[in-house]
């Protein structure tokens, strides 16, 4: 089975700059204080390039793209 992709936020580092939501509105929206709300479902493979761009754009290096291998 293929590994699935998941975006997570390092909340210690994140200070709500908001570039991630500009680049990946498909999976990230901002709450009323400007902090990201990340879609908790695994990310579609077609979004992977844009997700990598969003990760690279985060000024605080707080957005993380994880590969998770489903158990079993």
């Amino acid at each position, binding site marked *: 089975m293929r590994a699935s992709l998941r975006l997570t936020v390092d909340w210690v*580092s994140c200070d709500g700059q908001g570039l991630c939501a500009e680049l990946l509105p498909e999976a990230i929206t901002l709450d009323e204080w400007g902090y990201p709300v990340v879609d908790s479902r695994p990310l579609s493979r077609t979004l992977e390039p844009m997700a990598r761009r969003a990760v690279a754009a985060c000024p605080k290096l707080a957005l993380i793209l994880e590969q998770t291998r489903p158990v079993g």
Partner: protein
Amino acid sequence: MTGAKTPLPVDMQTLWFLTRAAGLVSLVLLTLTMALGICSTSRSVGSRRWPRFLNQGLHRNVSLIGLSLLVVHIGTAVADDYVSVRLRDVVLPAGGLYRPVWLGAGAAALDVMLLVTLTSLARFRLGHRSWRMIHYAAYAAWTLAVVHGLGTGSDAKLSWALAVQAGCVGVVVGAVGFRLTDGWRKHTGWRIAGAAGVLALVTVVAMWAEQGPLAPGWSHRSGTPAHASAKASG
């Protein structure tokens, strides 16, 4: 032929002209890089029509274009054999044969720029804090580049070139001014210290420029080899 060489005909000075042109244009691009970088830290810059990732992407890409032009600037300066710029002079900030101190300022600027660029490419390994501390060195690199341009630039005294350089300084000072006033009241002490530092630095560089590169006889005082003087001042 003995003594001073006569200046080469224009069509044989291509490399030298390229050096000068690429130097000035890369200063403009690196100035733009500075302004974009300084402004991209601010939350108030983004809008629906000009999202913040645009600032950031331009900052990264314009810096790389500027560095590529710097490769042209340096490559042609080394390749041109009228004034002697050796490979060692590209990175070592002392001991050059042509206006050594001010050529050295350019080498130091390059060293710092390379440090800033390489650490940015390795930002994920480095972590945000260390990366950011090192990234502040860009201010020093840019300032050294301006001083290098005034000190070695054969065109620095031309009125339009002076206007371009003054414009570059104005753009960066303006961006810093915006940065220091944006979100006022937080870190007030740092902001005032920053503003005082910028004013002091601009004053010192302007006074030096007036007494040095813009005053008569700079070509000789800055250490231009005799055979190149005719050309460098022309």
